């Protein structure tokens, strides 16, 4: 709003110097009309207002006709056409009076920017279906730069409240506007910025209107810039930078958390009464959940009872519902846990249920806290069904936290019934540091294949957890691949493909399977092919290695890393 006002004020200031009287009256006139109608503006009334302000300047200024007559026929028609069009579309935009208003102030006509006129005429000529909305807006926009009335009129389209505001604002500004003030405001809006089609509707549209506005045909005109020039973040850099960041809202977030903590007794009461709890809202609730576990533990252990609490991180990739049940069973049974639990989650669940039934009634119930129950690993309907059964088990208390906006769609009525949930809004604003792999997510979103998932860090991490000879094998593989690459660079065609492929030379240059096996046996890394394949499978599972068949049918093993990254990993391996 402010940006607009400033400009129109600027425009208003200029004519004041040349023709002090005329535009003033015209302005106040139309403003008055506007003010009278503004509070109860309906689309119909808009038209009326248009007519009103149309007539006012007409009656005042006859010279307009002559100036109009002198204009070329082309321009003439150019100015006329919108009248009809806009009438037909009066719901959305009323450029009618803006054009008239423009012609209606002859003194300004003289000063009017010729190029703007041409442009508006052109736009109107080229007007087609999809620019229907914007075209008129654009025209109004151009004229708006010359005429304040047009400005305020145009506003009507958007919302009655704003109109009154802006009109009043105009009045005040009119009185106050001084030249010293003007340049300061100019910075607010770059000249011609409004000529672009804006996807943002002005003012407050109701949600559905906003949807249609943003989805209307032909608005998909976005710029063609790409991210090629921007160097993307790596995992390392991301974490390094995030460590430097100080959160401006730290105190507020802490306060928010403390408010949530205050409802711990309430949660406990709900637990006691057989409800299960679901926390939702924006932000990671992991810390809150952990705090609750702390609180619960303290409260109960003071009373001499140690409650078994199980915490589940639903976002952990590869987490299975069976492992959750198995953990709970371990917590209940402790030493008595049978050595074989059964492969099916239902079996474990039933074991769990019968164990719970056998427990004496005065023992503490089992509390299960599940972070991110709507995370992809647990999201599937089968898992949710099983969780619901767990929730329905007597003497099991379940606290879920859900992060996504539509998590409730996971549960149908019978699941909801089994879960027996009460919901609490626990917006924390805490970033999802553990829940999401930010860099990976973003790169997947950007469709950047070049950035290897995991990258050097990921590979290094996996290697740390692997046994000695697996690390040795990977070292061997890297050495071989790097050697092949160096060899390759000497022959021209190899080098060419290397440059073209660019991103992942490690995949194109590979080692032959047999060769690698032979070397591995020589270095006592693998004694049999079976063992060798087992080691390779581990790499496959972590996507640290690629394999393809070359035309002669030989299996070629490669590494999906850039050369620098490979060297880095190799360095770490040798040094470690």
């Amino acid at each position: 709003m402010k940006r607009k006002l400033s400009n129109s004020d600027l425009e208003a200031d200029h004519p004041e110097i040349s023709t002090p009287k005329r535009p003033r009256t015209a302005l106040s006139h139309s403003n008055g009309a506007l003010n009278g109608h503004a509070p109860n503006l309906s689309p119909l009334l808009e038209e009326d207002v248009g007519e009103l302000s149309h007539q006012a300047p007409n009656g005042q200024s006859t010279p307009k006709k002559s100036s109009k007559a002198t204009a070329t026929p082309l321009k003439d028609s150019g100015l006329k056409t919108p009248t009809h069009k806009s009438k037909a579309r009066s719901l959305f935009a009323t450029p009618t009076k803006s054009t008239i208003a423009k012609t209606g102030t002859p003194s300004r006509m003289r000063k009017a920017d010729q190029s703007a006129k041409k442009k508006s005429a052109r736009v109107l000529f080229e007007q087609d279906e999809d620019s229907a909305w914007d075209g008129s807006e654009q025209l109004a926009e151009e004229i708006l730069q010359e005429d304040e009335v047009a400005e305020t009129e145009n506003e009507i389209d958007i919302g009655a409240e704003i109109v009154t505001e802006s009109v009043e604002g105009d009045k005040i500004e009119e009185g106050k506007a001084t030249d010293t003030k003007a340049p300061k405001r100019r910075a607010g809006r770059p000249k011609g910025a409004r000529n672009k089609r804006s996807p943002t509707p002005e003012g407050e549209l109701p949600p559905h209107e906003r949807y249609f506005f943003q989805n209307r045909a032909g608005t998909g005109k976005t710029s063609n810039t790409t991210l090629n020039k921007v160097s993307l973040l790596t995992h390392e850099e991301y974490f390094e930078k995030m460590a430097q960041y100080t959160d401006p809202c730290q105190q507020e977030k802490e306060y928010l958390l403390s408010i949530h903590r205050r409802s711990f007794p309430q949660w406990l009461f709900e637990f006691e009464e057989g409800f299960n709890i679901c926390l939702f809202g924006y932000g990671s609730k992991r810390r809150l959940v952990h705090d609750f576990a702390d609180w619960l533990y303290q409260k109960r252990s003071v009373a001499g009872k140690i409650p078994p609490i199980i915490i589940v991180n639903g976002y952990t990739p590869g987490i299975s519902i069976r492992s959750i049940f198995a953990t709970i069973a371990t917590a209940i049974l402790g030493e008595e846990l049978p050595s074989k639990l059964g492969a099916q989650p239902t079996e474990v669940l039933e074991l769990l249920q019968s164990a719970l039934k056998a427990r004496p009634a005065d023992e503490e119930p089992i509390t299960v806290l599940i972070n991110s129950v709507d995370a992809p690993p647990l999201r599937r309907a089968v898992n949710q069904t099983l969780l619901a059964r767990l929730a329905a088990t007597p003497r099991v208390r379940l606290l879920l936290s859900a992060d996504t906006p539509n998590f409730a769609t996971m549960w149908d009525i019978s699941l909801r019934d089994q879960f027996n949930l009460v919901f609490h809004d626990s917006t924390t604003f805490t970033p999802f540091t553990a829940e999401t792999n930010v860099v990976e997510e973003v790169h997947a979103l950007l469709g950047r294949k070049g950035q290897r998932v995991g990258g050097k860090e990921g590979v290094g991490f996996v290697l740390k957890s692997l046994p000695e000879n697996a690390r040795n094998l990977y070292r061997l593989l890297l050495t071989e691949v790097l050697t092949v690459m160096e060899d390759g660079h000497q022959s021209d065609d190899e080098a060419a493909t290397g440059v073209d492929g660019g991103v992942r030379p490690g995949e194109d240059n590979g080692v032959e399977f047999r060769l690698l096996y032979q070397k591995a046996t020589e270095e006592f890394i693998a004694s049999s092919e079976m063992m060798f394949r087992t080691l390779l499978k581990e790499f496959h599972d972590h996507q640290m290695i690629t394999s393809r068949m070359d035309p002669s049918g030989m299996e070629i093993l490669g590494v999906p890393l850039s050369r620098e990254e490979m060297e880095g990993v190799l360095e770490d391996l040798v040094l470690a």
Partner: protein
Amino acid sequence: MDPVGQEDVLDLSRDKSPNQGAYVYQPANPGKTASERPAKRRKVSSAHDQGQAAVSQIFVPLLNGEENLISTQLRHDCYKQIWSRQEDRIQAILEDVDAGVLADVLSFVRDNTPETCNGCIPTGLVTVGSNVSSLSRLLSRLNDQLLSNDEGGVVVLESGDAPNLKTTLKNVIRAVITNTEGNDGYHEFLTDRSGPRLLSYDLDLLHEYVQRKGTKKLVLAFRDSEAFDPVLLMDLLSLLKSWLDRIPFTVLLGISTSVELFEGRLPRACISLLQGKHFEVQDAGNCVDRIYESLQAGPEGKMWLGRNVTSTLLEKTHDYFQTPEAFSRMVKHAYMSHFFANPLSVLLANPSPATLSHPVLCEAIRNTPSFRMFCEDLIESGSPENARNLIESDETLLQEAISHVEIGQQSMRRLFGAIGLIFSCLQHTQSVKKTNISDLSVRGLSGDLSESQVLDDMLATMRTFDSEKMGRLLDTLPEAELTHLLIEDIRADFASLVGAHARSLPLRSEYNINSSVMKTTVVQQRILLSKGKSNLAKRDLEYTRIVDRLVGAFQEYFAETLIQPQELFMHEAFLFDFRNPLKETFTPRPRFAIERALANPFDYLVSSADTSAARISVKQPPTAILYQLYLESGALVNIHDLWQTFYSVFESEQGDACDERLVMALFYGALSDLRSFGMVKNSRKKTDHLSKSVWIGL
């Protein structure tokens, strides 16, 4: 604030296991738990003098923690007592509702064998409609019945248990055996048997079990039949059919849609395997009305749900599918909220004023609107001393409050009695559209029943009743209310009148349409219609007098009982009427919450700094900034431009001090948030573009 909180910006310092899937909680080392101190000390310090007793308590002392510990305990006990009584009632109703179907199904299961079904599998089709929970209730009670008579058992199968035939069979067999033998019994059964070891999905196992136990009926219940894979169902049923001569299967199919639709999905060959009967479970809505009535109108009711809560509850039942259990849970939560969070609820526990005497509680009572109203009334009615006494003396106040709670409860009971009376009268007077008792209760609780159309219509219709109808109406009135109604002598007169004119029944009152005559006169070519009373017989005139007295008594009664509950002094103690925590607790709006958090982060983050100046500012969390930019964009967003805009937000405020890479890291975090919320996805239309998939408020 919290010093430890400041320290762990990345939220990793205390929680050591963010990457572990599932683990057993171990308390952090004692040094670290210091961070829990403030929260804990707050609780204990208030109860410091009471010592250990406080620890085991679930309720928190209210009134800034200054509430008397005894009152806290009283509130809890009172809740337990009141709710357990209500719960028993609900259970009784549920059992009663199910009883009919249960008996039918049970007799069906007992009476039918493959022989009576022409060699087909005996099948019960149970349509449950919206009342999904009823089936599990039904099945568990059926199971109990069969188990207690050693006839067999019920195995419930859900679609989730049946991914393929092998697993399904395995699950069936295990469930059957564990049903009687327990989990260990099952394993023993598998291992301790002579002969070759059978695979766990071999129906021979079940056969052996049936022989050993002498099972007569094995009911296999498919809880959500529609969700099963038809092919699998076909295989399973044909397999069961072929074992039917050895294992006495009976199949129960739970159907939520309709039998026809379900049948349409199955192949003919499958249907020809089944023969049986159709059972229908009563609709949930009916059940809910009954539960509501018994909760509110019970003779020894102590607290009531107000109009707002009632309408929220009923709205939910009407607008969504909801089971009676879910309904009663919501009611339970309302009761819980009342006793947990309202210090005045302690007055419901019939405490002696001595145990209560606590200045803070008295202060709380004096702050209630109803107290203010009560005092104003006292002053208006010319007893300012009483009002002054109430304000100055805690003792008087407590006495008065306790007695008024009782008076209020009495009037609430009578209010519901009156509603019940209206309801039973309406059964006679309304012919087409029946008003149900919950609707009446909502109107009664809001206090506008006394001047309502419904009541006027009802009384008008009653006037026109002839003696037969009136007799029936009087006979069906609830006994409890008749004592309040004071119409005993009227009834006696009525009875004697009817007795005296037993031959010329029915008697009609003068309001009856048959008793008035339409006169048509032609005056100067115009037709004049005029109503006149036909000459009534003496007995009819007598009857009319009785009717007038009766209606008068009703009117008087209603005027007295249909009060406005919000006007009762101390209604805060026994009337729970807060819509909001209840509604948000059971029908959350998570998407709205997230959108609001991101669009207006300072709604949540109460900030001391002035935040109203700029809409988007660096002071907001990065995701909120990006989300607001996202809101302004069109359906397709250029990532580069989005990034530039995001950056410029920071650049314009921080100037040269702005670290581009740091901002980019924030941008990454924000973008990944939006992605995990499903708000953006990669667009194939253009390179480096996102397509927007969620519009705020839609």
